[in-house]
């Protein structure tokens, strides 16, 4: 027994040293190995998926590519680790990946208890409801007594229970495991309502044979701020990821696009653009990057709006409106700190 304790202690000590080593100077490690190891989802429509060529692409993947572009000037200098809902946090905590960009909701316990740093919010999501139009429902408040398809073991399940209780309504849950199963069940009329994040509802609806026969109700019953995250303990690395993402947001706000960034990088009469694109000050060096790191991001990946429109915007099959994800100047929540 004593011996087992000893072995356990050695193992624990080894674990601590390894975790300690993992937190030191991630940026240097990344530069040394020549690529960013980025954790992504194994597949979320619009956010992370593979093309026929085998390349990872999507709205979340673009954050990884932006960080790579900021460090190496090359958006391809990323290696992707597909992570599931179960492996994502250990993969990040153990140092197997340098950052995680996998539609992960920023919550208190993940931030504090799991010891991660969320560097920003790249998509403000929220739980919504989808119903067939034929049902004639126009508001979630009319859903009393409905059967609801719901993914088990997720926060959506708890949100749903809370919402119905607050509004004194009853519902009958139809538990499902995956989004694919939900689609089947919903289309087979096994449930009246399907509830999950609104972006997921939109993506699901876009695959239906007759998307127009289904409506997404206006009520959003939860806050789901999704964003990229890194480990606690290396604030410099967190800054790199945070400002790589912020640069995309600020670029949209200031009208810098992948098309005009070369032109603007020669110098403009807007000092904030000049600071960001490296013609004024030494802001890149403060991060440990080139002074034109933002130029590289915007040139190779695009600004926030461009990326949004490319993967999940109104012109794509997903067809999401900007909504909460519009710039603060447009009535949305995107509000990057000033580049100064």
């Amino acid at each position: 027994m004593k011996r087992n304790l000893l072995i356990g202690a050695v193992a624990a000590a080894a674990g601590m040293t390894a975790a300690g080593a993992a937190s030191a100077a991630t940026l240097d490690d990344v530069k040394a190995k020549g690529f960013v190891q980025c954790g992504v989802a194994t597949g979320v429509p619009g956010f992370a998926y593979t093309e026929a060529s085998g390349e990872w692409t999507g709205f979340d993947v673009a954050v990884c590519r932006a960080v790579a572009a900021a460090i190496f000037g090359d958006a391809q200098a990323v290696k992707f680790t597909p992570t599931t809902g179960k492996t994502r946090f250990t993969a990040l905590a153990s140092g197997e990946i340098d950052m995680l960009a996998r539609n992960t909701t920023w919550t208190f316990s993940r931030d504090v208890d799991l010891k991660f740093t969320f560097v920003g919010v790249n998509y403000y999501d929220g739980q919504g409801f989808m119903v067939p139009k034929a049902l004639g429902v126009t508001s979630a408040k009319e859903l009393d007594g409905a059967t609801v398809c719901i993914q088990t073991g997720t926060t959506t399940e708890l949100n749903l229970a809370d919402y119905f209780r607050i509004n004194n309504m009853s519902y009958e849950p139809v538990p499902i495991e995956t989004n694919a199963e939900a689609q089947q069940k919903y289309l087979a009329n096994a449930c009246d309502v399907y509830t999950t994040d609104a972006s997921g509802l939109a993506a699901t609806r876009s695959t239906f044979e007759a998307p127009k026969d289904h409506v997404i109700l206006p009520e959003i019953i939860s806050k789901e701020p999704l964003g990229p995250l890194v480990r606690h303990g290396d604030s410099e690395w967190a800054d790199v990821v945070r400002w790589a993402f912020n640069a995309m947001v600020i670029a949209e706000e200031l009208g810098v696009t992948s098309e005009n960034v070369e032109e603007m990088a020669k110098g403009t009469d807007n000092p904030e653009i000049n600071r960001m694109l490296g013609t004024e000050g030494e802001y890149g060096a403060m991060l440990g990057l080139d002074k034109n790191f933002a130029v590289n991001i915007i040139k190779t990946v695009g600004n926030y709006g461009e990326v949004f429109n490319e993967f999940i915007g109104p012109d794509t099959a997903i067809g999401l409106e900007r909504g909460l994800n519009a710039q603060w100047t447009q009535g949305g929540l995107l509000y990057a700190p000033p580049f100064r």
Partner: protein
Amino acid sequence: MSDVHAQTVAYVAPSQIPPSPPPARERGAVKWLRANLFSSISNGILTVIAILIIAYALPALVQWAFVDAVWSAGSLSECREIAAARGVEGAFACWAVINERFNQFLFGFYPEELYWRPILTFLLMFAAAAPILFNAIPRKALIGSALFPFVAYWLLWGGPAAPVILAIIGPVVGYVAFRFVEKAMHGDAGATGMVVGALAMVLWWSFVPGLVDAGPALEPVESARMGGFMLALIIGITGIAASLPFGILLALGRKSDLIFIKTLSVIFIEFIRGVPLITLLFVASSVLNYFFPPGTALDLILRVVIMATLFASAYMAEVIRGGLAALPSGQYEAADSLGLDYWKSMRLIILPQALKISIPGIVNTFIGLFKDTTLVSVIGLLDPVGIINPIRADSNWNGIVWEFYVFVGLFFWVFCFGMSRYSMYLERKLATDHR
């Protein structure tokens, strides 16, 4: 005498009457039907019900999978347009997605210009397996089989050749160490010699191959790019090939008189069997990382292969122990009375019989392990089941479900059915039972 008869009997048959055919109900299709499908009233009822179910399901299935199916299109909506243009109503299979992503299902994200390497490995696998599976092939070909794992590793992962060649020397080093111990212990090496030999081999593998980087190099391919059926085969075949020897050793260890070896074997078997495979996979994917400094961790596929092998070995050990227990103790005593030492008696008398008895159980474990490889999709490896997810997430194909699983299921069925058939062939070939 015959003359008398010829005169007294009116007719004598000059030859035997040709046999008349059996009655209609005792021959041909009718007999087969009576014997197999309608041997009793309850059987007849079941047959009729089964036929009705098939008649009900099959046309719809064929309609879905073949008649109405769309074989080439660029997206699900295009599939739907094509089907609508042909006047298809209701469900139909959109095989176009398998068509477009076929290579990803086979190889994952392996670089396209290097596809010849996994294909060559696959073909070599059959060449290497043939001498093991069939007796008719000259025994010398087994040397090729022994080299195959190293060649396969080199072909799949690439890199310079020198470390691979050094790795091939590993077993030789182990054997030399074994002989050394044998000599030191005056020809009675036994378990000690094997442990020392194995240790020497592992040490050699851990340190020596990394030293040299010379030799003709293949372009390296990292594990993250491997997926699809290739990954399932890598994990499945390695686990199958390695679990049998480990399982035999564990089974012998569990029956051993040496208390240390016996305890170790029992602890290992009971621990591994008491833990779900998926837990071991999570350990492989997550927990092990904490014990390695970042960047030096073993490759994820390697970790998973090791875990799958350990898992299958524990089951294999119990299957083989069943075979050992089924042998009458007279066999053990006979071996002893011939003056054979432990290893010789095992190799020549006990194991050939015990393994033969265990064949169905062994193949059962193999098939189970091969199907269990799909569990790696839970830890984010893109095996045939795991790779469905990123493909479905492509908005071109989102909404397709059945086609993927039917395709993957078919693949696994082909392989498992093949294994099961081989095991039946082997049982027939080795049948020396007391009939």
